[in-house]
């Protein structure tokens, strides 16, 4: 690895690389470079971004309690999939990020994806799911303060991120099945998946509405009683 002397630059790169630069490359290739290897390029990029973030994690400060809570929230969001009609992963990822910070949010999202796919089925989509949920969590962490103040913003973020998640994953599905990205096929795919996407978005929002307060209360209590 190249050794960077400047700690701030290093810190910036560590966050920016997986969260700004790589997604930018993925996006640019999607829009401009209509190469047939787009599926491969995006796959590799996502994998690299994940590896970078996760291995950089070793150096970060995350107290024992916060770490435990990440594992607790991850397990909860996986087991929540057993609930009827409620889809917990996006909602719990957002809530974890809101109270435990960006990093924790990323982890809860990414790890829930891996773990739940051991039940739902692994595939080439696993890294994308990890990345998508991870980013949803990471961004929610950045918006933590305003979202704690405004419930409405939280619901909006939850709804939008749930929807974006489905739409983005559809992009990859299209690229992978057809070898290239064309709007026509994308529309066909999203239309086919529409009932599912809508159901997903609604149950995700429903989960958020039901559990935003309890999760907040309970995490707040832990914070007050034991300190994080």
């Amino acid at each position: 690895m190249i050794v960077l002397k400047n700690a701030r630059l290093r810190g910036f790169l560590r966050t920016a690389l997986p969260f700004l630069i790589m997604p930018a490359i993925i996006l640019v290739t999607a829009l401009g470079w209509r190469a047939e290897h787009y599926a491969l390029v995006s796959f590799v990029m996502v994998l690299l971004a994940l590896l970078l973030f996760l291995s950089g994690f070793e150096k970060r400060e995350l107290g024992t309690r916060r770490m435990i809570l990440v594992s607790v929230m991850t397990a909860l969001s996986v087991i929540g999939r057993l609930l009827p009609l409620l889809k917990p992963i996006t909602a719990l990822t957002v809530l974890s990020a809101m109270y435990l910070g960006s990093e924790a949010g990323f982890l809860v999202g990414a790890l829930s994806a891996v773990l739940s796919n051991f039940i739902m089925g692994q595939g080439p989509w696993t890294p994308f799911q990890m990345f998508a949920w991870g980013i949803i969590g990471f961004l929610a962490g950045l918006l933590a303060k305003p979202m704690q103040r405004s419930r409405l913003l939280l619901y909006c973020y939850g709804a939008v991120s749930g929807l974006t998640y489905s739409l983005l994953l559809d992009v990859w599905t299209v690229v992978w099945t057809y070898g290239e990205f064309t709007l026509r096929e994308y529309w066909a795919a999203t239309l086919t998946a529409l009932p599912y996407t809508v159901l997903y978005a609604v149950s995700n929002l429903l989960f958020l509405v039901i559990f935003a307060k309890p999760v907040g209360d309970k995490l707040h209590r832990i914070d007050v009683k034991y300190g994080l």
Partner: protein
Amino acid sequence: MEALAFSHLTAVYPESDRPVLRDVSFSLEAGEFAVLCGATGCGKTTLLRFAKRELTPRCTHTGTVTFCGTAVEALEARTAAAQIGFVMQHPEQQIVTDRVWHELAFGLENLGVPQAVIRRRIAEIASYFGMEDWLTKDPASLSGGQKQILNLASVMIMQPALLLLDEPTAQLDPLAAADFLTTLQRLNRDFSVTILLAEHRLGAVIPIADRLLVMENGALTADGSPRSVLEKLPENAPVMAGMPAPVQLFRAVGGSGVCPLSVSDARRTLLPQFRAEIRTLPEPAPRPETEPALAFSGVYFRYQRRAADVLSDLTFSVQTGELYCLIGGNGAGKSTALALASGVLRAYAGTVRVFGKKIADYKQRSLHQGCVTLLPQDVQTVFLKNTVAEELAEIDRDYPAALKDFPFDLSAMLPMHPYDLSGGQQQIAALAKVMLTKPRLLLLDEPTKGLDAQSKKLLADVLYGLTERGVTLLVVTHDIEFAAEHADRCGFLSQGALISSDTPRRFFSENVFYTTAVSRMTRGKYDGAVTVADAVALCKLNGREER
């Protein structure tokens, strides 16, 4: 050498004006086995935590705690972690990883011990604790007793000089608890580990302890060898109710000589001091026969088609308004019987009737509304709100009126979070919540688990209050002392069938092995004495042997 010394420790929790520890001073010699007892909430846990740096409570304090001459907070981090071991009450939640071998390795990994050494230590400790067969298992598949042994082993693997244990057997059944204590005694003898054990199951611990420390309201009220402490302790001290039966009897009848600690001691030295002209107490008037509230007849149950029967030909009935205790060992089918009675499970043969009506004939909700309710073993599965008041309001908005008759004043716990209550208080809060569904038949699964003697007494009073209001109670328990003292009738379940059923006095005096300490102690001298009160009454009636 001094292993642990407290000197004038006084501690106050933030947002509290009452100190939780007051001027506590004592010291333990290396290799001592000390037992710390006291009612729930007297500060035992806080005291233990002051000796474990990582768990020191967030309170303001004066005074010092030293470990082998060094102040605990001045210890190097790794020394503090390794040299002072801590085992907590709940077996399940102390386990960190999902493999037994990894759990054992966890502590050594944290200390940065090389792989080869870890491998060796795991092999050693597994053979010492007889857990080679479990190494590759998931801890979730172990029994409660095994889990607690695993917790002990994963602390012991770091070779601590001092072992602190906070009610480690509270969640275990009597057999597993005895096993755990035996292991502890072995560790103390084999490695001269200094042990400080907070416990309220004193019957089994006092005979093996070197020291007994008694706490009351945050202060140390007695300290010395068990015998000397027990001889001096005032008879109305709160911890007295939890003492072994021989001790209670000795103190209540004013025996002379040394205080007996075990059943055999009592038979040898205490009972010969009394005459035995009157061998039995007058039989209390039998309860008038009433309608059965719950009747099992020829019930069979199994969890899977090809599995063995858990209940086979179970037949028994509970009369309206009585307190019936169903006792028996692990796997006898007690909890399954309760689940059937509550309608959660269904029998594959035989019938269960509740108030004369077949359980299958109750429409889905009518059974649980105003008829049958189950208070589960793990009462935390009942709570979901932020305060006890909200919990109660969830069932019935007008809970103060509905609980007017509840035989316990709940007002102090109403604003508290259910998880901040002690085990006994949680039990009572859950009971109150359950009572709001207005059951006529209440089923309780191990309600005394983890409770100290005083909380048990409190619970028993509440239960009596309920029977007086006409509620029928079926209690499933391992706690034979509780059953002997409080039940109207007891039933003994084994291999899924009812072996015997009778009033506690007849039931326990006819049992030989599965019976109370008093019954074993007075056997051959008096008939039908099963509780300490029985034995005290008989001794007093007969008077002392003339010399």
